[in-house]
């Protein structure tokens, strides 16, 4: 346990020291609020069922953070640690591999929550956005989504030969999702044909689940999203566990 807590403490420090990762997780979503807030404001709009553009951006950008961490941070870090021989050094100790994975997941969850807190703080200060759901249900959704996205990320790391390839694969998968899933911009802005494409993108289910729970819709209305994310976690998690390489 001491290994897990020390490793997690260290990973969080290292994450924060990494300027690119910190920018995309913490600064970028907040920056989007500033930019799009200045463009669209937060007036209630019929497109969003009476909510403002900034209101719906809160859960959307939370999904964006989950996608960035799971599909970019996880594969780049994992493949990089393997490529640089950092995993080799860890393996030459009694630490269990599962301890590393657990610490990585906790670190990423902590960074997600930190990013969301920052996002909400800025949204509240500038546009008085509200959270109308149940915080525990939201936390559940964040954990499930984080695990699902990370399982995809670990699989990307296994498939990639090194950190650079992992980054490219991660970006190829992530960027279309960013625009088409409702995480980067409201799904309502897309033409109906592209909205249909979103049904095939994993991040869409994260965005839908978070948006529903953020605005206090009943949990039972979102069992489908929960099931899809659980399915992704099981399928990709099993594939990642099977293909995971320490060197």
């Amino acid at each position, binding site marked *: 346990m001491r290994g897990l807590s*020390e490793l997690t403490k260290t990973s969080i420090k290292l994450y924060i020291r990494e300027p690119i990762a910190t920018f995309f997780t913490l600064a970028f979503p907040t920056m989007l609020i500033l930019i799009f807030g200045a463009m669209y404001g937060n007036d209630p709009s019929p497109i969003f069922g009476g909510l403002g553009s900034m209101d719906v951006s809160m859960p959307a950008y939370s999904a964006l953070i989950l996608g960035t961490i799971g599909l970019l941070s996880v594969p780049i870090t994992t493949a990089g640690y393997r490529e640089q021989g950092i995993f080799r050094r860890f393996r030459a100790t009694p630490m269990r591999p599962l301890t590393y994975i657990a610490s990585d997941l906790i670190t990423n969850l902590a960074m997600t929550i930190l990013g969301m807190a920052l996002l909400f703080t800025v949204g509240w200060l500038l546009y008085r956005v509200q959270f109308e759901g149940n915080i525990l249900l939201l936390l559940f959704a964040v954990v499930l989504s984080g695990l699902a996205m990370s399982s995809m990320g670990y699989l990307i790391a296994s498939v990639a030969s090194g950190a650079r390839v992992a980054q490219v694969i991660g970006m190829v998968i992530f960027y279309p999702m960013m625009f088409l899933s409702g995480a980067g911009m409201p799904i309502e802005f897309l033409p109906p044909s592209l909205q249909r494409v979103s049904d095939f993108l994993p991040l869409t289910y994260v965005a839908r689940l978070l948006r529903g729970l953020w605005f206090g819709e009943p949990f039972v209305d979102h069992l489908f999203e929960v099931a899809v994310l659980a399915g992704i976690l099981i399928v990709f998690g099993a594939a990642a566990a099977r293909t995971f390489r320490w060197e």
Partner: protein
Amino acid sequence: MAPVLEVTDLVKCYGDLRAVDEVTFTVDEGEIFGMVGPNGAGKTTTIECLEGLRQPDGGRVSVYEKDPYEERRTVMERIGIQLQESDLPSRLRVREALNLFASFYAESVDPEILLERMGLQEKAKSPVTKLSGGQKQRLFIALALINRPEVVFLDELTTGLDPQARRSMWDLVREIRDQGSTVFLTTHYMEEAERLCDRVAIMDHGQLVALDSPRALICDLGIERRVSFYPLNGSKDLGLEALPGVEFVERRQDRVIVSGSGKGFISKVINALEDNGIDFHDLRTEQPNLEDVFLSLTGRAVRE
């Protein structure tokens, strides 16, 4: 007392290549045991089988009578490892690295003590990437010692270090042994093995070609010694060929090289030169070394 490390008929293959081919040896407590040979001889594969990082394809390895691959975590608690190729996260700082690795073991040394012992106190807050080659190696040794290991594995510890840093590493290795650990190291520097190790295993093409103390290996060779000098009397006959023990005399440009063996060979040559009234300067003697042992056993020089 049972040996600390036992390797019996170890075989490890990569595809068609038998990287380690039926190697057998034991290492006793308190030894500095060296494995030498050129790159690709199978040293790293052998050490990594002992460390439990690779699974042997045949034969058996044991550390304190335990299989290091099957009982990895138990064995890892008792051994310290410095890997030839490994790294730490670039933004990790020296003290953080020690604290982190200390947390992986049931028992560990106070990281501050190791920082001091390795001369890294001033670098405690430096990121790993800001360290020099020698400092980084000292950090990796500190990590290998963090659990007060009974056996320390050092794989190519001094590769890439300058001569001064290398010498200070040798002192460090002796110190580790003097504090009670058994040391298993690999190197492709013959001089390092000769100076540092109690016993040396010479590897070539995955096989163990010799195993003994450096002194015994050199003596067993019965190899000649050499004396060389510049004679000042021009090309006058030196009258050395007839001397007992002299095997042959050759001239390279102006330099005369006398090869031979036997007790008192060098003083015989010098006395004969004085008796014959031959003045000389820049007299040098060459002792055979492990390099010559390797050459005579394999027919090749160890350097690629």
